[in-house]
């Protein structure tokens, strides 16, 4: 206990995140006797945080989380030194030197990107990392010590759940498909950037001939009455397009045929008239407070609206966008906190669901699915924070044999609700913590360097400030301090296909990619491949080695295309489907039958009243076990 006290008092700790886990963690660290705590968080406080982030009050809404959390903890532990940073952990000031000053780093983050970034900095600075995540009643804490245990990226993380394009555009079978259609296609088409590619119509209109005049359908014509416009859009997407789809009989051989819905079927003339008039005297005009629900006198977001109510919301929200928020049209992207956008998407998704015989959902549920909203409660965060501190103390005592990863379960497994598991050894083929090269199959005559940078280096490898080299030849470099010649040179390179770069990249070439901030390097062997499957390999390239373990990736590859979280780069999403009872967890290798059953039960219980549950990656969870060696290829740390 004395040793414990002295390591705790002498430790300098970095906390990343002052949210759900962060508030609990900062409190528990301070109570446990930690004296020197630094905390980084870029977020400000929102109302929906207050149910669990107990250091914050209504009056703090809009203020910096890290600063308010610091002040709140100082009230009951005034002598603790807490330094807060209202900043992004990916900012260059938080470089390897910065990380080196700490004895341990504790993550309470809510997104994969930042977690990967911190993992690399901890590896480069050789500082132990205690990582955590929660969703609902489930949570986990893991310990990552360079050379001793696996790093955060030793096991590939689950890719965001994606759906085949044709499922979204033509053959939805679940409500989430309707949400994705309403949000990523219809909403984007009507209110978003007109120049964006959009799959709306392409599939349902069976051939390119009709897609030409389709472009105009969504434009409001010069002087067109807003209600006429609304009805025209409605009839086109819910009526005409469905008729078109029905004409392709092949599609419906083994499926239930959808029913076209026209505005005249769902609205009486009287209703349609009335619709427009209710809101004239609405007092509030400022953007986000405009609401079709309130102008139609509908109050409860938990209600499931009838088809006719959904149609009225559809027309009213469309009308309100044009009348009250006309200036934003063309620049809008879906935001879960934008009431009117949520109303429009809920209504459109429900009307489409009705057409396809899919059960309708309330606005509350639709908002959760469309916004990938995290399920969160205070208790799980408190438990996880307690476990983080316990692991942090072991790390500080260098008590390697006692390190554990711990899972917080909703239903007991072998009588346990908190299940400790010995950490795994580093994965020898991990491209992050070992030096194993990756393999990239790519069409070197067609893919540009730009495509490689965007789709592989940034999207897949999670680098922010990359340098790309072929041997000693510099092909590309990102950063603020480059001279103009260099910038021009790199700009030119980005537009070239790989085989035509100054030092050509062809089959057999090895590229070295480095991120200066992360102090992280990896090598990629290039293999030329002529053809890629548009549906299955939409990137037009395929990275393998670490990222594509056979078991976990087969399914994902099949599904690739549209993903529900596409509009937000820092949220990775997984949909968990209760019918199948499958909890989508990345680390499938670890799963053994007993625990996966528990996981399935957990998922089933939590989703019993819903068709769907979306889990944020705050939460790349759950349920793995390692107490059995059966089917487990990884080595336990000794």
């Amino acid at each position, binding site marked *: 206990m004395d040793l414990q006290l002295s390591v705790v008092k002498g430790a300098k700790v970095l906390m990343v995140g002052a949210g759900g886990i962060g508030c609990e963690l900062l*409190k528990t660290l301070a109570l446990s006797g930690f004296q020197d705590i630094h905390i980084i968080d870029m977020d400000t406080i929102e109302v929906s945080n207050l149910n669990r982030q107990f250091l914050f009050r209504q009056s703090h809404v809009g203020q910096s989380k890290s600063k308010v959390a610091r002040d709140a903890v100082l009230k009951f532990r005034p002598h603790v030194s807490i330094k807060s940073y209202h900043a992004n952990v990916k900012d260059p000031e938080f470089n390897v030197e910065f990380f080196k000053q700490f004895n341990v780093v504790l993550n309470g983050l809510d997104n994969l990107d930042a977690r990967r970034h911190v993992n690399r900095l901890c590896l480069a600075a050789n500082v132990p990392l205690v990582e955590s995540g929660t969703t609902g009643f489930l949570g986990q804490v893991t310990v990552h010590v360079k050379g001793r245990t696996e790093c955060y990226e030793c096991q590939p993380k689950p890719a965001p759940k994606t759906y085949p394009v044709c499922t979204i555009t033509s053959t939805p079978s679940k409500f989430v498909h309707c949400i994705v259609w309403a949000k990523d296609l219809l909403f984007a088409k009507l209110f978003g950037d007109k120049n964006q590619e959009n799959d709306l119509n392409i599939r349902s209109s069976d051939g390119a001939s009709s897609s030409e005049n389709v472009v105009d359908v969504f434009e409001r014509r010069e002087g067109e009455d807003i209600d006429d416009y609304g009805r025209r859009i409605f009839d086109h997407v819910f009526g005409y397009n469905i008729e078109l789809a029905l004409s392709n009989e092949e599609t419906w051989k083994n499926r239930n045929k959808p029913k076209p819905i026209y505005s005249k079927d769902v609205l009486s003339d009287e209703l349609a008239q009335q619709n427009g008039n209710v809101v004239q005297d609405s007092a509030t005009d400022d953007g986000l407070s405009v609401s079709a629900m309130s102008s139609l006198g509908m109050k409860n977001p938990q209600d499931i609206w009838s088809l006719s109510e959904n149609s009225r919301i559809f027309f009213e929200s469309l009308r309100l966008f044009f009348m009250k928020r006309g200036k934003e049209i063309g620049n809008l992207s879906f935001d879960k906190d934008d009431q009117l956008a949520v109303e429009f998407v809920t209504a459109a998704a429900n009307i489409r669901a009705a057409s396809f015989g899919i059960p309708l959902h309330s606005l509350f549920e639709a908002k959760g699915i469309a916004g990938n909203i995290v399920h969160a409660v205070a208790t799980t965060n408190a438990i996880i924070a307690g476990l983080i501190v316990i692991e942090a103390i072991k790390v500080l005592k260098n008590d390697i044999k006692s390190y554990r990863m711990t899972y917080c379960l909703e239903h007991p497994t072998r009588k346990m609700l908190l299940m400790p598991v010995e950490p795994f050894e580093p994965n020898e083929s991990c491209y992050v913590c070992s030096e194993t090269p990756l393999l990239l199959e790519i069409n070197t005559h067609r893919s540009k360097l730009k495509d490689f940078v965007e789709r592989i280096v940034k999207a897949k490898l999670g680098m922010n400030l990359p340098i790309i080299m072929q041997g000693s030849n510099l092909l590309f470099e990102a950063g603020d301090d480059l001279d103009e010649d260099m910038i021009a040179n790199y700009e030119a390179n980005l537009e070239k296909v790989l085989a035509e770069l100054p030092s050509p990249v062809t089959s057999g070439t090895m590229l070295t990619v480095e991120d200066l901030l992360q102090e992280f390097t990896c090598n990629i062997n290039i293999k030329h491949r002529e053809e890629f499957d548009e549906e299955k390999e939409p990137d037009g390239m395929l990275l393998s080695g670490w990222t594509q373990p056979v078991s976990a990736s087969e399914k994902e590859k099949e599904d690739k295309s549209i993903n529900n979280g596409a509009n937000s780069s820092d949220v990775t999403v997984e949909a968990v489907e209760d019918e199948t009872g499958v909890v989508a967890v990345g680390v499938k290798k670890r799963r053994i039958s007993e625990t996966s059953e528990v996981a399935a039960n957990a998922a089933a219980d939590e989703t019993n*009243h819903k068709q769907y549950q979306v889990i944020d990656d705050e939460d790349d969870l759950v349920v793995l076990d390692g107490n059995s060696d059966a089917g487990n290829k990884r080595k336990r740390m000794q």
Partner: protein
Amino acid sequence: MDGEELTEQETALYDRQIRVWGADAQRRLSKAHVLVYGIKGTIAEFCKNIVLAGVGSLTLVDDRVANEEALSSNFLIPPDENVYRGKTLAELCCDSLIDFNPMVRVSVVKGDLSDFGIDFFNKFDVVVISCCSLAAKKLANDKCRKLSKRVSFYTVDCRDSCGEIFVDLKDYRYSKKKLEETNECQLQYPCFEDAVSVPWKALPRKTSKLYFAMRVIEKFEEAEGRSPGEVSVADLPGVLKLKEELCSAQSVNESHVPDSLLERLVTNTTEFPPVCAIIGGILGQEVIKAISGKGDPLKNFFFFDAMDGKGVMEDISEPNA
């Protein structure tokens, strides 16, 4: 439960948790009345959790005045003598908890647990007891059980880096949904006295050692007339002697209760804040389950020891009860 909808304010505040347990459960929570007796770090954690979750009311009872020890793992009390002088622990915690959630009524009642009558307990749906003697626990438990309505009864104790929760839901029915099916489930709970009277020999060999160790300490404190937690390393010989007697009376091997564990429990009786957070979190979750009728409740003991990191559930009841 029908008819009453959550207000807009409630829906906004509780959005993330309604997504976990549903609007129905949230409505039930907002009508539940919770009593806690004996406030240390673990109970402070529990109170925070339950106030954030949005129970109807929370009533605090603890007439002790604040001192260094009481402050050590309690984040509800500012360590400023000017603030805490002359106030009881319950009053100080109340001042702080009121701020956590304006929709929850937090109040203080003065008095000793043993003096409260059955009518008093009748006002609550949940009663949580901590830091009190074996006799007081049993008495309060009995009073709750005598009521015609169900009062969910819990005791909680943390020492060193260990914690224990006891649960008595009397006769508890709940519906359990599994995929498409809904099953009606029923659990019969023994009272504290009956649970701890189950012969040790009748319990599975793998039963948590902590269960037995806590019983030894409890008995020791009762026999010596100590207040809960009033033991020190000087008492170790006496505690070990009592252990021997209990093991032989129960005809179990002495290895049932490791000496090293007893030594930890008597040497360091102060709470370890991470364990307070864990036990307070599990307890919060259990109370939310019991109020909402959602999810399998714990039956009937829970143990956590930071040493091995396991959080274990134990069913200690007569098999045919």
